[in-house]
């Protein structure tokens, strides 16, 4: 069994259910996106898959390995790009990539070749010997992305892929993600950048208040909700459109 499967995953913090009974599947070769407002459970879902936290209920499997029961096997089958900047401020970019490769025990030549291509595409070749702590947030994000996407793994998880990236970086990332999907890897990204999600993803999962409210390809979703864009679809599904109309009325009242 390959790809990524979430069956009824639930995560609670005290009385608050952050993710409630989530079911989703990302098949190999599919680029899927989790989209939704702040606090809807996107990052928590990715953290559950990445094994940073454990689900209170339900099961998650990566390439057929349960992320709780066979945590190590599951982890060997995905690369993860978190939304927070990478640590190890006193390591150089190359040292960090070497450390990351070492933890996954990937063959050196292949990984370095892939990483070299990505560093060049992101314009980071000159930063190879620079300490991570001296780099900007965006460049560190690019390094984290390079580290994970250079792995030869069947699943890639990316949290807020465009966060801190310049327009050139976004274009490179979009092509990279599409390329990785086309080689048969399952990609799941959590983002609030609906334009990016619409252009990159084959399948979208719309989350709201910890639950899945709609899913399908961008085209199917647009058609189903008779919207011209995913942004409109999202506003229609979540009912946020009404709130925004109300907000605009209030703003008008301010200016009067």
């Amino acid at each position, binding site marked *: 069994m390959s790809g990524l499967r979430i069956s009824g995953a639930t995560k609670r*913090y*005290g*009385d*608050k259910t*952050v993710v409630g009974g989530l079911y989703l599947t990302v098949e190999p070769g599919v680029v899927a996106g989790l989209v939704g407002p702040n606090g809807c459970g996107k990052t928590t879902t990715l*953290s559950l898959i*990445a*094994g*940073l*936290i*454990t689900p209170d209920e339900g099961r998650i499997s990566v390439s057929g390995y349960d992320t709780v029961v066979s945590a*190590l096997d599951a*982890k*060997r089958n*995905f690369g*993860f*790009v*978190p939304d*927070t*900047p*990478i*640590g*190890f*401020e*006193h*390591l150089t970019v190359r*040292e960090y990539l070497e*450390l*990351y490769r*070492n*933890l*996954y*025990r990937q063959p050196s030549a292949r990984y370095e070749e892939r990483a070299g291509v990505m560093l060049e595409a992101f314009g980071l070749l000159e930063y190879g010997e620079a*300490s991570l702590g001296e780099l900007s947030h965006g460049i560190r994000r690019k390094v*984290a992305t390079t*580290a*994970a996407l250079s792995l030869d793994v069947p699943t890639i*998880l990316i949290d807020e892929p465009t966060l801190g990236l310049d327009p050139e970086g976004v274009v490179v990332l979009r092509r990279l993600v599409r390329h990785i999907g086309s080689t048969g890897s399952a990609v799941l990204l959590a983002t609030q950048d609906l334009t990016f999600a619409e252009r990159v993803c084959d399948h979208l999962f719309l989350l709201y208040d910890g639950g899945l409210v709609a899913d399908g390809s961008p085209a199917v979703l647009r058609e189903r909700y008779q919207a011209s864009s995913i942004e409109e679809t999202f506003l229609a599904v979540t009912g946020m459109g009404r709130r925004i109309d109300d907000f605009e009325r209030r703003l008008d009242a301010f200016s009067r």
Partner: protein
Amino acid sequence: MISSGAWTLFRANALCLMRRLRPVARTSPVLALLALLAPAALIVGLAWAGWRGAATMAASSDDASTAVVLTVGVVFAIVGFNVQHVSSADRSLDAQIRAAPLSRLGLFLSTVGIPFTICCLVVSILSLAFFMPLIYAVWAPPYTLIHLVLFEGAIFYAAGAVGEVLKRVTRRQPAALLALPPLVLAWVASGLATGGGAWPGVARPLGHAVLNTTIESALRLTCGLLLLLLAGVSVWISVAAFLDFPEQQTFSHVGRKLRVPGSRFGVVSSVALKRIGRNRSVQRHTLFVAFVAGTLSCLTCALLPGVAQIALGSILLLAALSVAVVPLATYGANRDSSWFWRSAPVSFATYVLGMVGAGFCAGILVVVVPTATATLPFLWAGRGPPEPGVVVVVGVTLLVATGAGFLVPCSLENASEQVLSYAALGASLAGVFAAGAWIAPRLTVLGIPELLIVAGLTLIVAGLVVAAAFLREHERRKA
């Protein structure tokens, strides 16, 4: 066997730590030189102190020999507990590395286990330097030093295990308490097996062996100590690496509301202070130190009344050194909010003074609870309050800790950083007290009252701490 991943991660952490020291060396070459000389000076100093005290210790009673060994045990327990309890493997690494395929044991060993063991070895070398002259003076067999190191290691790891258990209990995992009985049983069993009795445990025969008062069976002592060491290490690893770690509750009660004072200095210090005060690790740590200090005081009052005053002073100093992790970490824990203060309408001087104030006040606040619990049994037994000198030493220790935290910042999660910060604290304290010991008698000869000398020296230390903080922060902003 340590997995290659764990070893790689440990090496990366160690490399980062070494590189972190480079700017400190650039800013203060004198301090860097002192730091390099400090370990050698400390070993020589301890050997000298051991040589000076050897005759007194050799002539001491049976009770005192047990007390000496127990005190050494307490030092190791507190150092071990500090490193293990406050540090947290799950929070010291970023999410990308935590999601990498590294087992919980590997993660634990790389971030806590290996630094913890190195720390234990360093402190063992220091204690050997102190005890070697005594062993030589009383003609005790040289292998007694090995027994002493085994004892120190056992206590160190047992304290780490206790710290891990308490951390889990406060995170609503009471099942972790099941790990404590094996430790108590191992202590009692090793005591009974070596003829030390159930409660003094292996400390009594070891005390006799160190002072060469009674010929102990070396084999029995070795077996007893190995049993204790094995129990400490296995419980420590079992609890830390194999028992699921309960996750931190995201939504929790934070206690009293923050009241922001009117003055800018007050705002900086109160916010930094509140932030460190709300940290669960700090709360747990303070309670544990209070518990240990109280227990030791009660035991000393009941079992060793002859050494009560010395024991009280030692316990208070150990409590101060133990809670020194809080002023040490105040600046480090607030590092991530420095952008806020830099962009806020707060002057550079206000920020630095506010942070120094927060660190020192945090130290004072957290030392009050263990001090009270340590002193109460002695007051109850009618043995009087601690010497005023001890109070001054406690205050200066916390003040210097605040300065050391600025020079070599550490966070509450990172064990390696804490070890390094403690080394800086040790070097600074050695310097301060050596200078004080040299200056004070010369001023007394001039007829200056003792109180004035103490107050003056304390003010000078405070000035030095503030100056060091200013210099370091200035360098950081320039970089």
